[in-house]
């Protein structure tokens, strides 16, 4: 009988995870770039997941997210949205600025700090116990497209 998912998630999040190198991809979606990195735990092949980085290319202030996906679930995330607020109907809360999400509730936990992307990446990797031994790569920037040519290639 497989262990309950909650136990597996906690074990995965607590374990030291090795990440593969990510690269930024903007194919099929010029508005944002996405990077994926696979996560492994030494000697525990069943504990494998994915780190997903998403970065908006045109929005000001910038919008970034860092997510850990495990067994088809988003189990930890950092949504960087400085000076921006949005309303969540299910929680009844207004989420202001940057916030974290942690398994199992995934409720928004605010973070008032103001960092650039590389520092947020470092914060996320440290908090998620991820070892990323490669050179950090900045998300690709973009120039705001003119209207009405919003969908032209860069």
């Amino acid at each position, binding site marked *: 009988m497989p262990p309950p998912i909650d136990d597996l998630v906690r074990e995965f999040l607590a374990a030291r995870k090795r990440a593969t190198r990510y690269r930024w991809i903007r194919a*099929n979606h010029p*508005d*944002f770039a996405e990077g994926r990195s696979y996560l492994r735990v030494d000697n525990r092949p069943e504990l494998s997941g994915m780190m997903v980085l998403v970065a*908006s290319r045109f*929005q000001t202030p910038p919008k970034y997210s860092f*997510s850990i996906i495990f067994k*088809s679930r988003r189990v930890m995330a950092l949504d960087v949205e400085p000076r921006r607020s949005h309303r969540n109907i299910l929680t009844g809360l207004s989420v202001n600025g940057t916030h974290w999400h942690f398994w199992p509730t995934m409720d928004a936990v605010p973070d008032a700090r103001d960092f650039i992307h590389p520092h947020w990446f470092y914060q996320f990797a440290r908090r998620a116990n991820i070892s990323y031994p490669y050179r950090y790569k900045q998300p690709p920037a973009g120039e705001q497209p003119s*209207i009405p040519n*919003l*969908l032209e290639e860069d």
Partner: protein
Amino acid sequence: MPGAAEVEALARSLVQAQETSLGTEVSTHVVYPNGDLVRVNVACAEDDVVVSDLSLGSMYLAEIGVHLSPQQRQRLQQEVAHYTCEFAKGRVYRHCTHDQIADTIALVANASRSIADYGSEAKRQFDADFRVTVIERLRNLVGPRLREREPVAGRSGRPYRVGGVILDRKEVSPVAFVEAFATRSIIGDRFMAFSDLKLSFENVRMISVYDDSNNWLEPDLRVLSQVSTVVGYSKSDASFEALA
């Protein structure tokens, strides 16, 4: 009991607009699956107005680990077209005139939500994730005898990229073809591949490794067992070590 005017005022309070560098961003009454209100952008240039979700629906999918295949994108284009919107390059949008802005905001917001809703039903890309796990384990066992995503032709002549090809000790001939299954979404393709490959490679073992931490239907495993040896990942030690 609030009167109609008060109810209307309460309902309107959800809608808020703010100027941004890309136009006017509007929060709407429509909700993504995680509870966030859908926000759309209204951009005006002379007589042309474009209302779009700035790919927020697509970003929602990316953040939960969903990649859209060309077929899935095509299907979503048809869904979005129900709202008289377009879905291209990740973005939901609709051109309109000034007096159509309110209607178009509603249409684009609903279309964007339908993109995000797809994340609830899409087969997530964990086949790739699980495949990497299985391949790495095989690599630890057989080292250079493993060829990953090797093209191999079946009896029909059709080529297939086999997830893991295990060669003999001389690294010349295949002794096993291994495929990893995180979910049932790729069973059809791999069944066809194994069926065709078995006819050309009678002495090669076909092995299907499935992620038994997920729920599987017995009929799916029986289908795979018609063309391969089916092994749950947590019980795969003996099968893998036999390949070493």
